[in-house]
């Protein structure tokens, strides 16, 4: 069953900028989906449409079975974005209570969940401190607690680790994945951080200049690159890369290098990675545009 389905989703802003072009997308239940693309590709617009904040110019979509722009989408999902902030003049607990009110959670339940998540985030002792006094990493953890308060069925994450140091980013990633698994929450992740996406996601979509140019599992995407097979031979005087059609050609290249005085220290047949596939598709789409 699909939790997100879109057909021909397009968005042109009033200033004439087209952020999304005919996006057909399908994300299955239980999937952690990564929407990857460079800055300005339209990822944030996609999230804002799918979470019901913005209206598409054309096309239609369903999220968790709810159709275009329904408030129920925002009730059943949560969004954590790169820039979205908490109220810095209010305390951690006041912030979380306010967002509980936004989701109509009764006070008793809200207080219980706040205690649970703040303890999980190791921030229970800071509950009465103003958000302004927290570090960037702590603020991000409070934001994660905020997104989980109403137990959403789907979480949109838009560059969730932006601005964090690698250690804090890694902790946030692990926390997101763990909590998603514990609560069976689906995740829609937007990022240009490929290693992070590869670590968290089950399936991927590449977005370039508003167009969804590739969509599928890692294996499907990587297999789809019709790249020439290559061999990398490392010698005492450097690395040599040769295109090959059959494995027998490897011996020929090795013998040729030995006969010319090189000492072979390693041989490798590189497999295309998700990163190779990403750059392959993104660069191709940009060349096509030119």
């Amino acid at each position, binding site marked *: 069953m699909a939790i997100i389905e879109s057909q021909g989703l397009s968005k042109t*802003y*009033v200033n004439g900028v087209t952020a999304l072009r005919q996006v057909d997308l399908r994300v299955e239940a239980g999937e952690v989906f990564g929407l990857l693309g460079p800055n300005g590709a339209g990822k944030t617009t996609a999230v*804002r449409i799918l*979470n019901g*904040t*913005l*209206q598409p110019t054309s096309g239609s979509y369903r999220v968790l079975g709810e159709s275009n722009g329904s*408030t*129920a989408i*925002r*009730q059943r999902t*949560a*969004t954590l*974005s790169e*820039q*979205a*902030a*908490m*109220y*810095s*003049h*209010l305390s951690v607990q*006041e912030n979380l209570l*306010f*967002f509980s*009110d*936004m*989701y*109509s959670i009764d006070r008793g339940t809200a207080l219980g969940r706040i205690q649970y998540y703040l303890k999980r985030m190791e921030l229970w002792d800071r509950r009465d401190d*103003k958000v302004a006094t927290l570090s960037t990493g702590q603020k991000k953890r409070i934001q994660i607690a*905020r997104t989980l308060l109403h137990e959403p069925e789907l979480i949109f994450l838009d560059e969730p680790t932006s601005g964090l140091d690698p250690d804090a980013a890694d902790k946030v990633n692990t926390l997101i994945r763990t909590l998603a698994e514990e609560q069976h929450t689906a995740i829609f992740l937007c990022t240009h951080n490929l290693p992070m996406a590869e670590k968290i996601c089950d399936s991927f979509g590449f977005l370039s200049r508003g167009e969804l140019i590739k969509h599928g599992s890692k294996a499907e995407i990587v297999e789809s690159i019709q790249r020439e097979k290559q061999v990398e031979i490392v010698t005492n005087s450097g690395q040599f890369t040769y295109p090959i059609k059959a494995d027998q050609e490897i011996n020929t290249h090795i013998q040729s290098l030995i006969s010319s005085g090189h000492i072979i220290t390693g041989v490798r047949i590189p497999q295309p990675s998700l990163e190779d596939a990403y750059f392959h598709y993104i660069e191709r789409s940009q060349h096509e545009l030119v």
Partner: protein
Amino acid sequence: MNWFRIRAVIRKDLKEVAGMKMVVLPMVVVPLLLCIIMPAAISITVFTYGIKFISNVEMMEQIIPLYDIPEVFSTIPLQIQYIFLNYTFLPLFMVIPVMISSIVTANSIVGEKERHTLETLLYTPITHKEFITSKLLGAFLPGFVLTVTGFLFYFVVVNGISYYYINDLMVRSPMWLVGIFVAAPALSLLGLTITLLVSLRAKTYLEAQQMSAMVVVPLVLLIVLQISGVITFHTGYALLFSLAVLLIDWCAMSRLLPRFKRENIL
């Protein structure tokens, strides 16, 4: 509409405002000056030293016959003081609701946008109607409450001083009731509307506040025209003026609100 959510946003906005010195300072200083310090200083000075310190007394004397002044205030200094404390202070008073509603609206919309909290709020299930209602009420109510409270202080301070000196109440024109309960809400709405309009374009809280501060210019003009005798305030005129402002509010709001979409404010 979910009033639970609306109340939560209003409560949160007020709590946030209370924690910001930059926002609270003008909201405290201006009413304090207008409701207590200035009227008390004027009253005590006039009762103690008369009107010797007023320049252009002749011009003030010329406008005395234009106003309904109770017979008990028979001397020229008392009559001038009556005009000043009742008719000149009223438009000055109107600065309070206009200023407060503009400050709170600017903070709760452009300020939130600037601090990136508006995005977090708009990602919650709050509907467009709930959002607008909470932001409008959250800005209107403090302005109205502070105006009424300020008037009560003004009434007690000015009448307390006048009772001490002349055994009579100086602030007793029915125009105050029209001013506080009709003109102040109407002008407060005007301040709100103009700040909402500014919010669509302004990038920072200070920019929004400075642009919407222009709303007080017509009020200052009213005061100047009134002191110079060009126009005279009466209860009926104040009521007509308030109704005209309400009409402007309604026209402006009905044109502005459809433009005030999530897409335009994010």
